[in-house]
């Protein structure tokens, strides 16, 4: 078991990089999904989707807080004042909300990875992270239950629904593979048992999502012929991230010295 102060320099760097990736993903997707609040397809779903967006933001805040405990700036400063190329989120979370099929498919693919990732992290040698991961477990379980139920029902639903869901899967799949873009710290993370690594996560993720998608009657994109959307982890982003950050920080930046 490692605490914050037990790490060597390279281990600290690796852990921080991992935390930034995870927190930025959750911040940006939580923000994106919050755009649906009050505008959802039916009241009951509007409420559920908003809760999950709140959970994501809460998760990102907890992870930024851990970074802060490791010597980084405070969560608000990290989330609201960095330059676009300093964010380490994957491209999947950056895309606009689009139609509900897209938002649901993204939610399904992303949250399935989150549930597995944090389950893996709950036995991380980095105890503060393991502790956070265990705390997220219940919320992530609900997210995946919600996502699986929707995908299954829309995939087998009437009208244009199966077609829409298939189309969204085709769009989201390469983007979702970008979640697992390896960092230069993979070896350290794995050897120090901080995290089992993106490759292991991707394998487990495929094992989990494919049966659900098949069960929903969807055609799985041929993974060999799909190019994963990499770059986000290195700060190279889609055209959608900058306007998102500008919008998100508009009020915060009116007066950065202010307490809001």
């Amino acid at each position, binding site marked *: 078991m490692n605490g914050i102060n037990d790490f060597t320099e390279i281990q600290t760097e690796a852990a921080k990089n991992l935390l930034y990736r995870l927190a930025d993903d959750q911040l940006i997707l939580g923000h994106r999904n919050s755009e649906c609040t009050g*505008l959802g397809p*039916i*009241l*009951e779903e509007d*409420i559920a989707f908003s809760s999950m967006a709140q959970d994501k933001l809460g998760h990102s805040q907890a992870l930024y807080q851990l970074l802060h405990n490791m010597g980084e700036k405070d969560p608000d400063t990290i989330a609201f004042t960095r330059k676009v190329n300093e964010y380490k989120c994957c491209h999947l979370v950056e895309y*606009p909300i689009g139609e509900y099929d897209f938002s649901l498919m993204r939610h399904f693919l992303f949250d399935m990875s989150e549930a597995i990732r944090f389950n893996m992290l709950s036995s991380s040698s980095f105890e503060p992270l393991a502790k956070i991961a265990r705390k997220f477990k219940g919320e992530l379980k609900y997210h995946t*239950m919600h996502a699986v*139920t929707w995908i299954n*029902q829309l995939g087998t639903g009437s009208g244009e629904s199966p077609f829409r869901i298939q189309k969204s899967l085709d769009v989201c799949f390469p983007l979702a593979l970008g979640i697992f873009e390896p960092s230069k710290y993979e070896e350290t993370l794995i050897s120090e048992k901080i995290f089992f690594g993106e490759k292991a996560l991707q394998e487990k993720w495929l094992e989990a999502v494919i049966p659900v998608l098949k069960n929903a009657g969807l055609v799985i994109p041929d993974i060999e012929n799909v190019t994963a959307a990499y770059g986000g982890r290195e700060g190279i982003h889609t055209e959608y991230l900058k306007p998102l950050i500008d919008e998100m920080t508009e009020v915060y930046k009116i007066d950065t010295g202010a307490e809001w």
Partner: protein
Amino acid sequence: MSIKSIDPRITRENLSDVADQNPIKELNHWQTYEVFHQTKKGDHHIHVGSLHAPNAEMALILAKEQYARRYECVNIWVVKSSNVFTSDYDDEDIFETTPEKMYREAGGYKVMEKINKYKKERKGV
């Protein structure tokens, strides 16, 4: 003309300000379900409200957030509203029973007097 809003989310939708829409059809917001929740194990499930859902599985998923996001809860039941059979408030008087039903109350059974009388008599023997 599309609406330019102070809300960037709305501006992005490119909404027309011309009001034309087909009315929402019957059942497009699905059927109604009744929601029951249990605050802690050992308690009864209590009716907390209703919601619209297309089937029981979805009702459960949606009920969790609308009826348990802010309150302690360990278990939820959902029941289709159409499956609930109720008594009629017009028949409310069937619940007003006559008070002369001591035969089913604990207080309706007092035998100490008999026992004491019996004991006294035995002593006399």
